[in-house]
């Protein structure tokens, strides 16, 4: 990333006295390049890296370069919130810093009582075993310069339960059903650990001022467990239900 920015700055400096000196054609070409990257290349790369057992992919297109890299110990960047801090009002927050798919024992024991508990815990443990675990790639895009902007532009305006425009962990988040609204979470029958679900199935609702907003499964798979207790206040985009994707399950 820094090298890209340096390159852009050098580009500007070379072009003239200020950042405005770049001519319109160069800008238009840049915009077209970014659009192309956002629309086709980035999603394809994310999918590719998710299936490969490598740490990094890099592709050059025109003047732009896209590099996708698994963070060392993919779990570190899994929690979405850079700005997270302990909060009295977000009792569901504290788990965000944890490894993917390793719910806190006390939380999972409350959320997943009964026979489903052991199974889900072991599934979770294998899931979070390390950066090479193909089921939790924890991708973070690096470069070109503007961080996640291409991803952002393609993510806006889509369904309320996507990984979120600025979420670099697009693939990782696909295993988590997130909150479509700010409100109070009520898990449904299909959120019980071990339940086989299809993408789009209703896992529960978030009650926003008395209007239930559906929490849906982002992928086909098996429910590992709920991350947040019933009746908890949740924010938009908060991780609610953990899923083991069907493809990965069959691959094992």
């Amino acid at each position, binding site marked *: 990333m820094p090298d890209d920015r340096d390159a852009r700055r050098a580009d500007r400096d070379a072009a003239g006295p200020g*950042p405005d000196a770049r001519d319109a054609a160069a800008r238009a070409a840049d915009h077209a390049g970014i659009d192309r990257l956002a629309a086709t290349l980035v999603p394809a790369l994310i999918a590719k890296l998710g299936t490969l057992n490598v740490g990094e992919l890099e592709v050059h297109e025109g003047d732009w370069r896209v590099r996708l890299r698994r963070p060392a110990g993919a779990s570190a960047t899994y929690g*979405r919130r850079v700005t997270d801090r302990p909060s009295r*009002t977000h009792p569901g927050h504290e788990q965000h810093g944890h490894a993917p798919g390793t719910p806190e024992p006390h939380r999972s024991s409350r959320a997943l009582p009964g026979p489903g508990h052991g199974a889900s815990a072991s599934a979770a443990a294998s899931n979070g075993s390390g950066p090479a675990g193909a089921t939790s790639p924890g991708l973070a895009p690096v470069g070109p310069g503007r961080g996640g902007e291409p991803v952002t532009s393609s993510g*806006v305006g889509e369904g309320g339960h996507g990984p979120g*425009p*600025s979420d670099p962990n697009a693939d990782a988040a696909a295993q988590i059903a997130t909150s479509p609204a700010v409100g109070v979470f009520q898990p449904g029958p299909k959120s019980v650990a071990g339940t086989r679900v299809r993408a789009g199935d209703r896992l529960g609702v978030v009650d926003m001022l008395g209007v239930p907003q559906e929490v849906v499964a982002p992928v086909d798979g098996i429910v590992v467990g709920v991350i947040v207790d019933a009746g908890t206040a949740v924010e938009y*985009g908060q991780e609610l239900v953990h899923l083991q994707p069907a493809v990965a399950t069959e691959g094992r």
Partner: protein
Amino acid sequence: MFRKILIANRGEIALRILRACRTLGVEAVVAYSEADRDSLPVQLADEAICIGPADARRSYLSAPAVISAAIVTGCDAVHPGYGFLSEDETFAEVVGAHDLTFIGPPPPVLDRFASKEGTRRLLGGYGLPTIPGSDGMLRDDEHALAEAARIGYPVLIKPSAGGGGKGMRMVRTPRELDSAIKVCRSEARSAFGDDSLYLEKWLEDNRHVEVQVAVDRYGQGVHLGERDCSVQRRHQKILEEAPTPALSPAARADLCERAIRAVVAAGYENVGTLEFLVDGAGDFYFIEINCRIQVEHPVTEMLTGIDLVATQIRIAAGEPLGFSQADVQLRGHAIEFRINAEDPAHEFRPGAGIVESFHAPGGPGIRMDSHLYPGYEVPPYYDSLLGKLIAWGPDRATAIARGRSALDELVVDGITTNVEIHKALLTNPTFLDGRMTTNLLDRIGSAAFLAAAART
């Protein structure tokens, strides 16, 4: 006083409200969209809650999301800031229906002042001169043509809803009127969801002067002087100052006293701003009232030493104002420069991107209200305001000198800002003489204005 306030806004004003809450000892929760996850107010807040995606219609403009966030975080009041839901009386009502307090005028007061045309009639009845305008909303083209002929060209087409200069057009001939109305209607419909338009006489070479007022629930009200917002680009304010160089001290006092008398008599409550146009002869005409805190409120804070946001919160909590007109002392001169992510070389096109470095100027009389920090990514979804630089001095010349020095010191690298237009203004003879009118920039075009300044 409130226990906990939800700040339903973003950027510099969210930060400003957070500071006021801290000063008052009230807890605050910053509500944010996904695009603002890494924003400074979110980072500095004790608590923050994501209310929706980047699209403002599903976050900052979503009444259910904002109210639900206030409820689940245990807030008892909502501060809307400016823009977004700040002047939506339906939102204020729904907030009240959920046992929360809307920080601003109470819903019945907002309702009374909701229509610009109704407000002009109301305050006109309490002694404020108003600009000759159409008789109510324009019904159709014939009505518009007849009213324009009666008022006399040029006329200004204005939307009844909304503000900030959006959806307004000036027309000089009947031929222009027809197509301009079509454009204004569609703009107003998409921006405000209401395409009612009315006409006003266009005053050539006018100045925009506004009076800041604060009125408590018990009918105690003060004015806090006026602000001159004549420096505009396409009806968008970019520089504001106080006192106005347009009026004599006696005329300023007369304007402010008539404004506060009228709003108190009309039952206004909380902080608010009455906007006036002042013509070349020094006559003033009331145009509209803004029932919220305004972007340019720091100008008044610099002159009075009164925290307007804290005052707004205290009044909403039902506290008495606690000071009288005699306690309001206006000292010196202040100028605010709006620093926008806009490219003056390209028609002020709004920009976005990463702030590679940021340095806020300092020194005597300098204040910078900004949410920037190095590494911050300015999202492309919202308005382009990056911050406000305010320069105070004992007199206008000192404020200008300090402003010039501070603008030179300001560093915002990585994104293009409009700072050049401010530097150009501070070399412009018309501005330096205090003779600027609202068409100062648009008359010759901002590009030509910048080029002219570069030659001097």
